[in-house]
């Protein structure tokens, strides 16, 4: 049992090395952004240490600089980060049933898009230590990147920063596309999601909707739609 936990931890650690690098690049730009808005490196680093959410933190930084009310900051975080509720629910379903409360509380510390992405693709049942290993590798990249970005903003040449900016999206693609090889219907799911996301960004009436709300709306609507027209077989959950 202990051995199995240690194996899961190490696998999570290994799988998250690319996430750590991607996080470093993204949080570096977030750190630059934070210092440009008047936050100290300590404040920016603490925010990254306690939140691990790119869109939420970017919104938070802007609202702090704007001296917005505590309540509106709380609400904005709830809306932008509501997608994590869906992700945690998906993980809870996949998690080993005898997982302790302590492990459940600990792995809740970082349910990010990327860590969710790799843990959702593990074979069920999921060992929570996989997530602990993932955050052990990914979190330092996120926090140190933020601090370095805030302290020395312009060390990286702009052309390097520009090239690094696609890393996170390429990782999303590398999580979403491989399962298509075994389940061709997922190609329909992915294409429809991207098409609808694009429509939201170009249709005038919809383009004012914030990023967080857009992700929630499309995720709920399309996941429900596909769940109705193509409910999964038992074995799909193992994918």
């Amino acid at each position, binding site marked *: 049992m202990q051995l199995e936990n240690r194996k899961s931890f190490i696998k999570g650690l290994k799988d998250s090395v*690319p996430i750590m690098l991607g996080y470093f690049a993204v949080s570096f730009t977030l750190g630059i952004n934070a210092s440009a808005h008047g936050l100290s490196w300590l*404040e920016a680093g603490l925010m990254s240490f*306690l*939140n691990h959410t790119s869109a*939420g933190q970017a919104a938070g930084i802007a609202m702090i600089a704007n001296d*917005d009310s*505590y309540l509106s*900051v*709380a609400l904005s975080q709830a809306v932008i*980060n*509501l997608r*994590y*509720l869906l*992700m*945690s*629910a998906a*993980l*809870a*379903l996949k998690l080993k*049933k005898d997982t302790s*409360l302590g492990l*459940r509380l600990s*792995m*809740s*510390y970082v349910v990010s*898009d990327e860590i969710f992405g790799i843990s959702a693709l593990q074979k069920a049942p999921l060992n929570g230590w996989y997530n602990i290993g993932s955050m052990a590798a990914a979190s330092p990249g996120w926090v140190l990147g933020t601090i370095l970005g805030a302290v020395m903003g312009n060390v990286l040449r702009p052309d*390097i920063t*520009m*090239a*690094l900016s*696609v*890393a996170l*999206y*390429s990782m*999303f693609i*590398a*999580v*979403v596309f*491989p399962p*298509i*090889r075994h389940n061709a219907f*997922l190609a329909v*799911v*992915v294409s429809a*999601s*991207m098409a609808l*996301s*694009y429509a939201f960004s170009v249709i005038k009436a919809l383009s004012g909707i914030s990023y967080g709300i857009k*992700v929630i709306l*499309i*995720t709920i609507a*399309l*996941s*429900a739609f*596909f*769940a109705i027209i193509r*409910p*999964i077989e038992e074995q*799909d*959950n193992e994918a």
Partner: protein
Amino acid sequence: MKHNVYVYIIIMALVTYLIRMLPLVVLRKELKSRFLRSFLYYVPFVSLSVMTFPQILYATGSPALGALAMALSIGLSLAGVGLDIVALCSCLAVYLASLL
């Protein structure tokens, strides 16, 4: 600033933690509903796709470079190349293409 930055940060952290923690602590039993299980199966594919496109086109400031990164990443992913190599090749391709 009249509000305290650290209070802001703590509030953000608490809200975000609650959102992540509640389902993991509350959802203990096997979900009976086939609809809910199917729904949750599709959530990662839909949400990650929505977060990728069209944002990847705007990430570099040049939609052509973004499209290049996307096409290359999809090709490599379908060929079975690992996550880290996909991300690395994509960044490298964007860098080299930007020199042209």
